[in-house]
């Protein structure tokens, strides 16, 4: 075994470290140096060292603030958006558009039956304005990219975190949750959205519909946002679904909708899409029909752990959310790493 000194011996030896005598000439050198102009840096005041936990906390706060600040800088909504005419002669604020120009806040972009335009949505995406459309660049918050579509057609591709891009129509507010979609508004102000990637939230008052990729939803003026449904849904099923949305439907309407949806033998993606339709119906059908909706939804996609029949029938929000997340997770929910999920949720919390 290696021999070592005892701690007491180490201390004893260290206390015998030889003291060297400073040369007498040092005093003269110091006096001379004091007479010459100061070249030394100012001395730091004697202070307590900063605790490590405080330094670490400051670093964490700095990183979080820097990240959020950087995101705000990147995603800040510009006051003017670039417009590129892609067909015909669109009009901005009454002036014909023949070359790329800017659309300022409060200005209208109008297309006729033969014209279209491509609108740059800040740094986060593009919106293709179809024929016979009337679009207003709206005022919003620091990061709110906001349009009003009075009528016509918008084809939107957004590549950014959720809740940065909004489209107001006469019937609904469509909030981008990180996605691509086509939004059509008819002359009566009714809206129809077809989501092709990600999610869109439709909100009117307190009523909300969440439309995932692959589904369509409709909203009429003065009505709550409709339940999302597959695009190939037959007309009679759409009519039954609308009656259920308006709390006017009965068991026959529910059976029409269930029959038109994909069954338990369909591909899992299609089953989950149909599951989203049924999930929306849970709070919208009369209580006596809720059991039937639950059973069919459970056949299409079994409830995840922690979700019970009783909880769903009682419309407990956490269980409903857990099942919806299992059917089709959103941007912040699909992150697998905990810190990525935390950062995304922090972003959504900040932006909200």
């Amino acid at each position, binding site marked *: 075994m290696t*021999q070592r000194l005892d701690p007491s011996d*180490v201390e004893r030896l260290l206390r015998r470290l030889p003291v060297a*005598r400073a040369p007498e000439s040092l005093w003269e050198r110091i006096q001379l140096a004091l007479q010459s102009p100061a070249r030394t840096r100012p001395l730091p005041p004697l202070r307590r060292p900063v605790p490590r936990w405080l330094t670490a906390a400051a670093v964490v706060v700095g990183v979080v603030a820097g990240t959020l600040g950087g995101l705000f800088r990147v995603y800040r909504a510009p006051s003017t958006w670039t417009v590129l005419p892609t067909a015909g002669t669109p009009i901005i604020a009454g002036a014909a558009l023949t070359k790329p120009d800017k659309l300022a806040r409060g200005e209208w972009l109008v297309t006729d039956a033969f014209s279209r335009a491509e609108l740059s949505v800040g740094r986060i995406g593009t919106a293709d304005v179809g024929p016979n459309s009337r679009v207003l660049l709206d005022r919003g918050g620091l990061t709110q990219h906001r349009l009003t579509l009075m009528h016509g057609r918008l084809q939107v591709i957004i590549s950014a975190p959720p809740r940065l891009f909004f489209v107001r129509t006469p019937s609904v507010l469509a909030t981008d949750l990180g996605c691509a979609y086509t939004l059509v508004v008819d002359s009566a102000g009714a809206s129809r959205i077809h989501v092709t990637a990600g999610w869109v939230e439709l909100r009117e008052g307190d009523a909300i519909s969440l439309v995932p990729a692959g589904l369509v939803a409709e909203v009429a003026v003065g009505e709550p946002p409709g339940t999302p449904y597959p695009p190939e849904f037959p007309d009679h099923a759409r009519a039954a679904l609308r009656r259920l949305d308006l709390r006017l439907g009965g068991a026959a309407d529910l059976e029409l909708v269930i029959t038109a949806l994909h069954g338990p033998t369909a591909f899992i993606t299609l089953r989950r899409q149909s599951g989203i339709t049924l999930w929306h119906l849970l709070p919208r059908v009369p209580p006596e029909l809720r059991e039937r909706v639950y059973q069919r939804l459970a056949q299409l996609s079994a409830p995840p752990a922690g979700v019970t029949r009783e909880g769903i029938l009682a419309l407990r929000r956490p269980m409903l959310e857990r099942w919806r997340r299992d059917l089709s997770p959103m941007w912040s929910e699909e992150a697998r790493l905990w810190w990525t999920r935390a950062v995304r949720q922090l972003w959504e919390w900040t932006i909200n």
Partner: protein
Amino acid sequence: MGTIPVAESELDAETIEGCRRGDPRAQRAVFERYRDRVFSIALHFLKGDHAAAQDVTQEVFVKVFRAAAQFRQDARLSTWLYRIVANACLDELRRRRRVLLFGDMSPAIHPVVPAGESGEPDADVARAVSRLSPRLRMAVLLRYFDDLSYDEIAHALGVTPGTVASRLSRAHAILARDLAHLRPTGRNSQEGGHDAAS
């Protein structure tokens, strides 16, 4: 050269006040009180380089006298002074590293202990201390040249007392290994006998 005396009491308030005013007699008193300790710390820290140790000592006292007016009476003068010593030594080390581009200084430019005494226990201790990393070396020198407390060393080095304790503990462990040959012979024989018996 002699061994280290125990810590002396602080200078009287009149001397410190005179130093703050720039009184040469008070400055001389401060210089006389600390000159050998400051010089010794610098000399050991800089591995026996007398010229560099003199420069550092001069720099320390010039800084102290120039900034004496800023000195707060509620702090110990020695604590403040040793903070300046530590900074000056580390600055000198950094300056040399920039010159050498890599590594620490070359070992023992001039031995701290005169050549005739080389091989003596004190010389071995000085060499072992000079081989410690700069952070551990400075903690040891402040601890054993003026018997500073952990709190005072922490103030001088700008770290927490816990860090000081950790550095001293590591330094002791290294020195206990490097100076194993200085074990008292009586204890060695006793332990040897014990081993044989067992």
